[in-house]
């Protein structure tokens, strides 16, 4: 008698999943247990876990020749999620479960030796993949059921142990499908509100402009000026995430195993603040089987880099490509993993090593010291930062009065209006925000009238702008004009944008040049 059974499961690649068929065959011959199908060490170890778990679940494995294949065979499978489907496939192949009970069901989960089913990372992409491939039911570890239930159009069943799973598949037991506890997305940013920060109007205004046009932002200022405090409040004025965005973000966190059982769907925009000792791999993602890095964890949110010059050059250089493309590609033997990484970069730095330049009575740095400090940031990175603003240390009287500062919610309303204008304008174009505009886009959407052109000509000469800065100023001016209702760019908009212009290399490198 030969018995053959197939169970569906999935392997996670990046934030996507690929369907995997787990085939088990039990036949006559010398008793053995072999597994094939381009397996990583983690999957190969499943053999021992499965055998023991089956035994402890009360299932007796007759001494037969057991062969397990995971197809497609050219796909490298890793992770521990295959334990449960392998166990079920074997049990089925021994005749415990008929094939028709297995069709349309995707199974994933890790087994412990006593037959309990353990949580695994990446449930969200697995369930999403199952739904896409026409599965009706998804059997996942109990601990992950909330996470999977977030998706609609598929029944997610949480199982606690192997015995229960086999009983269910045999039709001897019913398990109620998990229903998502979609609590209304709590306003998580209530804790961090711009109303907490009094004063700093200039910095707040710059932040608002940056958020409106999705421009990358650099804050300079002495230590303790409140740069991090300001940055932490940015997610609160970003528009709320759409369900698609929330799903994207949750997938990334699911793959990283960072989703909490209580809150399976992330509703607030991520705010990532890696320490400046972070390596390039920590930033972009890495590992033999790549896991998302900080740029991906900040997807649809804010990546805050405090003490920008202290970051290693490699870690900063690696930001360039995701900043350009909104995603990261990591190549490993045979497979390229794609992680989304569309984030708003917010960086903060001191103007010099001691932090007090240009206050020369307090600054103790020499020109070479300052130069070395600033040279750590490469100009290609600076060129991707549209807005630079100084955050001044708050004086005591300003700390006192807290009333009058605007609430985040009010700012967010304005941001939403401005975003809506952009959305309408960039319909059917490759752009999404003003910050995405390229040369051609600038010519179409940021055309200046004669008067404004003349003004910019004057500014070009008087302020010593470069061509690159010029285009960045136009983008920012576009955003400021949109904040004013979306009309054409006028002189006041340009004036404000000029004030936020990034300090280009020369400006910092040779400070005597600048002060002429």
């Amino acid at each position, binding site marked *: 008698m030969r018995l053959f059974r197939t169970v569906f499961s999935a392997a996670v690649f990046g934030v996507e999943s690929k369907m995997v068929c787990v085939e088990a065959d039990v036949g006559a011959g010398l008793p053995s247990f072999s597994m094939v199908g381009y397996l990583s060490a983690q999957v190969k170890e499943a053999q021992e876990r499965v055998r023991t778990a089956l035994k402890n679940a009360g299932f007796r494995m007759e001494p037969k020749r057991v062969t397990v294949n995971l197809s497609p065979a050219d796909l490298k499978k890793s992770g521990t999620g295959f334990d449960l489907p392998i166990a079920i496939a074997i049990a089925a192949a021994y005749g415990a479960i008929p094939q028709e009970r297995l069709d349309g069901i995707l199974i994933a989960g890790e087994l412990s030796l006593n037959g309990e089913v353990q949580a695994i990372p990446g449930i969200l992409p697995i369930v999403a993949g199952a739904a896409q491939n026409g599965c009706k039911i998804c059997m996942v570890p109990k601990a992950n059921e909330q996470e999977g239930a977030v998706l609609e159009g598929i029944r997610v069943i949480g199982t606690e142990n192997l015995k229960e799973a086999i009983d269910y598949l045999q039709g001897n037991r019913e398990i109620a499908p998990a229903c998502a506890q979609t609590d209304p997305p709590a306003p998580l940013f209530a804790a961090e509100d711009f109303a907490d920060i009094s004063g700093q109007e200039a910095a707040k205004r710059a932040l608002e402009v940056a958020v409106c046009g999705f421009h990358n932002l650099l804050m300079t200022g002495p230590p303790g000026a409140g740069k991090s405090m300001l940055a932490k409040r940015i997610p609160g004025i970003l528009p709320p995430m759409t369900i698609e965005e929330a799903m994207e973000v949750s997938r990334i966190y699911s793959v990283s195993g960072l989703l909490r059982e209580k809150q399976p769907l992330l509703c607030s925009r991520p705010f990532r603040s890696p320490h400046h000792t972070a390596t390039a791999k920590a930033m972009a993602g890495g590992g033999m089987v790549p896991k998302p890095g900080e740029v991906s964890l900040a997807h649809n949110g804010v990546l805050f880099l405090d003490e920008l010059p202290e970051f290693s050059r490699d870690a900063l250089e690696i930001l360039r490509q995701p900043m350009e493309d909104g995603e990261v590609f990591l190549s490993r033997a045979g497979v390229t993993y794609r992680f989304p990484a569309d984030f708003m970069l917010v960086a903060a730095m001191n103007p010099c090593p001691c932090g007090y330049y240009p206050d*020369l009575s307090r600054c103790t740095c020499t020109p070479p010291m300052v130069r070395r400090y600033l040279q750590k940031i490469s100009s290609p990175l600076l060129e991707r930062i549209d807005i630079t603003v*100084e955050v001044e240390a708050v004086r005591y009287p300003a700390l006192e009065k807290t009333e009058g500062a605007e609430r985040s919610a009010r700012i967010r309303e304005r941001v939403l209006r401005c975003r809506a204008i952009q959305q309408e304008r960039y319909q059917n174009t490759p752009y999404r925000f003003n910050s995405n505009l390229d040369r051609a886009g600038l010519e179409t959407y940021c055309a200046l009238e004669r008067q404004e052109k003349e003004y910019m000509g004057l500014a070009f000469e008087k302020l010593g702008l470069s061509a690159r800065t010029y285009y960045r100023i136009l983008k920012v001016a576009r955003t400021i004009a949109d904040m004013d209702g979306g009309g054409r760019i006028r002189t006041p908009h340009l*004036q404000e944008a000029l004030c936020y212009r990034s300090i280009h290399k020369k400006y910092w490198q040779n400070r005597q040049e600048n002060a002429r």
Partner: protein
Amino acid sequence: MTDKNKEAEWFWLCSAPGLYEKDRKRLLREFETPWEIHRLAAAGTEISSVKGKKREQLLRWAQEPAEENYHKCLEGGINFISCQHADYPEQLLQISDPPSGLFFRGTLPRKGERCVAVIGARMCTYNGRNNAADLAAALAQNGVAVVSGMAYGIDARAQEACIEAGGRSFGVLGCGADVCYPKENRTLYEQLIQNGGVLSEYEPGALPLAAHFPQRNRIISGLSETVVVVEAKKKSGTLITADLALEQGRDVYAFPGRAQDVLSSGCNRLIQQGAGIITDLDEFLELIGCRAQQTRKEKNYHMGLASSENLLYSCLDSELKSLQSLANETKLPVKELIRMLTDLQIRGLAAEIGKNYYVRTR
């Protein structure tokens, strides 16, 4: 012995590695001429004025082909002049320890050419830089050369402004004349060679060691009839130069500053000790026997400014003010304030120094 040979011998002495001016002076006191020293050193005779490692180095140096080195140096574009040469700057001979020889690129101050030293801090304020530039330009227009140290800040700005105004300027270096230090001032270094010169008492290739600079300062003041200190802290290389200038009997002038300004504390101290005070550029020019510039009309620059712009303009100061502190002072909405500030900059009434720090320029 021809003059040429004599110069070569002086070159041999001045470029001897490890020897400082005081060693050379001691050697010359003992043996009178460089060629005598060279002859004795070449023969390995006992030389008591220098000892130890320096002596060994000198004996080894005596074996080198002096004449050939000298010509190689000249062909390399670095000139040499000894203190015995007729073209050696007269002013410098008046000081107590003139360098035995000078290495230079470009030219040296000509006979009777007037020189004024303009010196100051490396980390300097916007105002200090402007004062230095105005003074240097005025001197240039009067045919007075500006001598300085080619350092960041005041020194470099004064020399640049002098050359821009068509004058001649001399940079005295604390390293070899062929070494550009600081390297960021490369452009200025090249300009100096074209319009004046760079000079040094150190042999070509000498590194900018910290110990060289106080020594080099005596040459800055020595070359000049007057030394002007634009901005200096109380303890600084600039004040060393000013002290040396006083010892050498040069006139010292300083730009005054407010009592609490760290960068003016050195200048104020000098004035307290009796240095001349520069409150008016024309007055100073007359004092040193130059033609005053055409009196510049004090225009009312704030004419034609809207009332809120006027408010902002009057809040701006020669001291740096940050965007936020201007917002606090003027109570204007930030949006307006930012726009007006940019406009003032474009009209040339204000300048941005650090990121979002502003000063008034007129």
